[in-house]
């Protein structure tokens, strides 16, 4: 389907400031940063997790470990979908038991991805806490899930799509809203 860009919501400057603010919120709330681990949800969540980890190291001098989570095997829309999902590797090289887990995703929409991610994390161990960071909260929740850290809250219509682009993977930092062509 053809798509067209409806609006550019954030540029690299805004994105940078949002990252700085979120990082400060995380360090303020988590007194013991040595107990913090970050788990990014594939694909964009991983790059956001890396950026956060770098900023924590820059501000506080503490290196926070990062894990990668693929939630394909925990999806609830699995048998309804026509297309099969590619399973990618989950790579969490540390124990999460008794840790403060910071779960990171790019866009929070229905909340179903986060439900799957939490189920997956709990199968891997028993964390002390799970906190949720999303870069964009676009609303339309279908489950009782609320993020702890938000880059930007963005009211959207259901048919629109939100893309978070990051320079590590998409060559530039920006957040855009996309509308499927032929719709108003």
């Amino acid at each position, binding site marked *: 389907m053809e798509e067209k860009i409806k609006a550019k919501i954030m540029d690299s400057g805004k994105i940078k400031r949002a990252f700085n603010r979120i990082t400060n919120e995380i360090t303020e709330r988590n007194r013991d940063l040595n107990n913090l681990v970050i788990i990014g949800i594939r694909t964009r969540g991983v790059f956001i997790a890396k950026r956060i980890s770098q900023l924590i190291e820059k501000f506080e001098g503490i290196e926070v470990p990062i894990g990668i989570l693929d939630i394909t095997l925990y999806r609830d829309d699995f048998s309804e979908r026509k297309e*099969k999902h590619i399973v990618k590797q989950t790579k969490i090289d540390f124990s999460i038991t008794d840790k403060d887990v910071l779960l990171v995703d790019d866009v929070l929409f229905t909340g179903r991805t986060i439900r799957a991610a939490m*189920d997956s994390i709990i199968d891997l161990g028993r964390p002390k806490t799970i906190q949720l960071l999303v870069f964009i909260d676009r609303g339309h929740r279908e489950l009782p899930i609320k993020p702890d850290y938000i880059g930007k809250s963005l009211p959207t219509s259901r048919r629109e799509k939100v893309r978070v682009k990051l320079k590590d993977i998409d060559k530039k930092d920006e957040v855009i809203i996309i509308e499927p062509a032929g719709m108003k």
Partner: protein
Amino acid sequence: MVFKQKHLLGIQPLSTSEIITILDTAESLIEISSREVKKVPILRGKTIINLFYEPSTRTRSSFELAAKRLSADISNFSNQSSSVVKGETLKDTILNLEAMNTDAIIIRHAFAGSPYFISTFCSSHIINAGDGAHEHPTQALLDAFTIKQRKKKFSGLKIVIAGDILHSRVARSNILLFKKLGAEVVLVGPPPLLPPYFSKLGAKIDYNLDRAIKGADVIIMLRIQLERQDKSFFPSLREYRKLYSLTRKRFQKAKKDAIIMHPGPINRDVEISTDLADSTESVILQQVENGVAVRMAVLYLLLGGKEHEIAD
């Protein structure tokens, strides 16, 4: 993502990209088996039947664990304990099992082509776990996965398969698979166990193990099927051992980083010497470990999602 098969009847019907999809998926799934909770919910509610008309420990339990680690329900049937002994036909057995709403049937049968036969009237996914001397696709896939782990790529590799090629479904599936992935395959064995028509599958044929092994990257030793030796395919076990057993001395002619594989069960000091079977060059137990991941990948790709309906 490329995977459009409804069944896994053999390596032959698979495209190279479908094979790569299976291997990549297995790569992602292997980590689950080393978790503390070795289970993910993706195939929850799916019913799988393990139907084994021939004895097996490795393959049957490997499929069983693969299904369980994906949260599917699996039931085991073997011919000794089922109504087969009362004279029920294969078709009737399958129709009866399917009447219990199965999603997949994994079958091992002494007759080549039986999985295909079942697939013509059965709506479940059919997985071939070995049919006569025809194919054993998941064994070939786990062999390929193990080779990929060690060697990274297939082009330029020299893979020697030695032993009883004639009766080996593993050899047939392996030849087809390695050729699709671009490796060179050399078959070795005594002439009565290695008919010349195997060259039609794209493999080279050699009757001299010492010569064939030179420069090999991978050596796959096949089991001498002692239970089939009543037809005397070679004069004596002692002679076979002398000419075709993999010993340390023979192995030294292969490449320095060559690996030794065997689909099991091994006859120690018949086709392979005990010290080699237990050596660091042997990846026989890694094959078994990888088997679970590869079978998980196959079950996931066949049973998860509905892509085959588009292909239909």
